[in-house]
């Protein structure tokens, strides 16, 4: 798939699509078997409802819907590779990405899964940027799709109320680093010295040590966001929208305080959909775009943290693009 045509080998975002199930499960519906109240869940997480895919709905189903929407948004031009960021693949073997590519009528292109938990989107963007820089691809479809509720213990008040199902996708093309949508430096990191902080063993439920996760998420996201902004040559005061992984509204608030950002400069999309893992950043972007808060020319700083531990951040100037999503679902 090696190609050597066109000018510019920077990674430029040119399409966005999401998939969000219509079903919402409220705190009142959740709290029965958890031994906590609906108010406790809201105070603890900032979440009042979470999006849930119905029975028989797979990660691939979400990924295909988001991918279709992103391809329609990008308009024109085939993609050369597909990367699916997920920790809830439909099978242990094979990977889910080839099936997603086939359903998107993209046979033959390289397609693979990438597991970096809630940081998966940023890891996948960096890999896409690498493929483009190596001239191995001109356009890459990056999809982040997770169904974390399929991993949670319905009786665990720490994890069960937190997560929702969702997917988001971005089309990344080769272009000039001055193009609107060009990714700034993507900073990534991992620390696997204590994998038990957030873990789901084969055949077991997801467990999470809440307070420790909170501290690491706040520290890692605020530090890496500052570093990514500096690497792009931006001051935090230049940022129009900070888009953290929507882990928990309390984490977002703590990161915002550490960065000294006003609430109006932070995109939030968790209250009605829950923590959608790797999909949360594209869902927040799509939501902000649909309601008119995010517009072309805005400076966007993204940061994520997840199991692994993994974390990362990057920047871009939001480009003009079509929005092919069902707006009523993400407003």
């Amino acid at each position, binding site marked *: 798939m090696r190609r050597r045509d066109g000018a510019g080998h920077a990674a430029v975002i040119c399409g966005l699509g999401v998939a969000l199930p219509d079903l919402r499960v409220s705190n009142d519906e959740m709290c029965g078997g958890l031994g906590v109240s609906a108010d406790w869940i809201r*105070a*603890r997480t900032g979440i009042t409802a979470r999006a849930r895919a119905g029975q028989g709905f797979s990660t691939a189903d979400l990924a295909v819907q988001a991918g279709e929407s992103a391809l329609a948004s990008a308009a024109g031009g085939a993609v050369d590779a597909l990367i699916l960021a997920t920790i809830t693949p439909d099978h242990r073997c094979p990977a889910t990405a080839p099936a997603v590519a086939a359903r998107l009528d993209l046979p033959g292109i390289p397609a693979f899964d990438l597991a970096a938990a809630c940081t998966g989107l940023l890891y996948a963007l960096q890999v896409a940027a690498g493929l483009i820089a190596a001239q191995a691809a001109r356009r890459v479809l990056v999809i982040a799709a997770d169904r974390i509720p399929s991993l949670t213990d319905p009786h665990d008040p720490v994890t069960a109320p937190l997560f929702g199902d969702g997917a988001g996708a971005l089309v990344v093309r080769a272009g000039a680093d001055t193009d609107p949508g060009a990714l700034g430096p993507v900073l990534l990191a991992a620390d696997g010295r204590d994998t038990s902080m957030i873990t789901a063993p084969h055949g077991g439920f997801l467990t999470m040590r*809440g*307070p*420790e996760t*909170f*501290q690491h998420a*706040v*520290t890692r996201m605020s530090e890496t966001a500052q570093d990514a902004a500096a690497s792009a040559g931006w001051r935090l005061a230049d940022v129009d929208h900070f888009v953290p992984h929507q882990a*928990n509204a*309390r984490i977002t*608030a*703590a990161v915002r*305080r550490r960065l000294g950002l006003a609430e109006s400069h932070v995109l939030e999309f968790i209250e009605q959909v829950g923590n959608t893992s790797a999909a949360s950043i594209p869902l927040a972007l799509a939501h902000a775009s649909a309601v008119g808060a995010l517009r072309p020319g805005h400076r966007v700083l993204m940061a994520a943290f997840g199991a692994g531990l993994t974390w990362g951040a990057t920047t871009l100037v939001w480009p003009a693009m079509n929005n092919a999503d069902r707006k009523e679902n993400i407003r």
Partner: protein
Amino acid sequence: MSPLLSELLTELKVDPHGIRPDALLEEAGLDSLTLAELSMLLDERGVKIGQDELAAAATLQDLDDTLTRSIPAR
């Protein structure tokens, strides 16, 4: 309430006014995530007290006592 705890609570958006010293931490709005952030704020001020140690306090007064004990020992 000590000026330090009052300052920290304000930073955490927990209004310290009108909270009784014998109020349980949860009653005062201090759940385990707030204590995790409180531990981080203390760390920024050079005071090392883990979230677990803070969570061992039953009341706001206990929490204040934990801070007071730790600070001279720095």
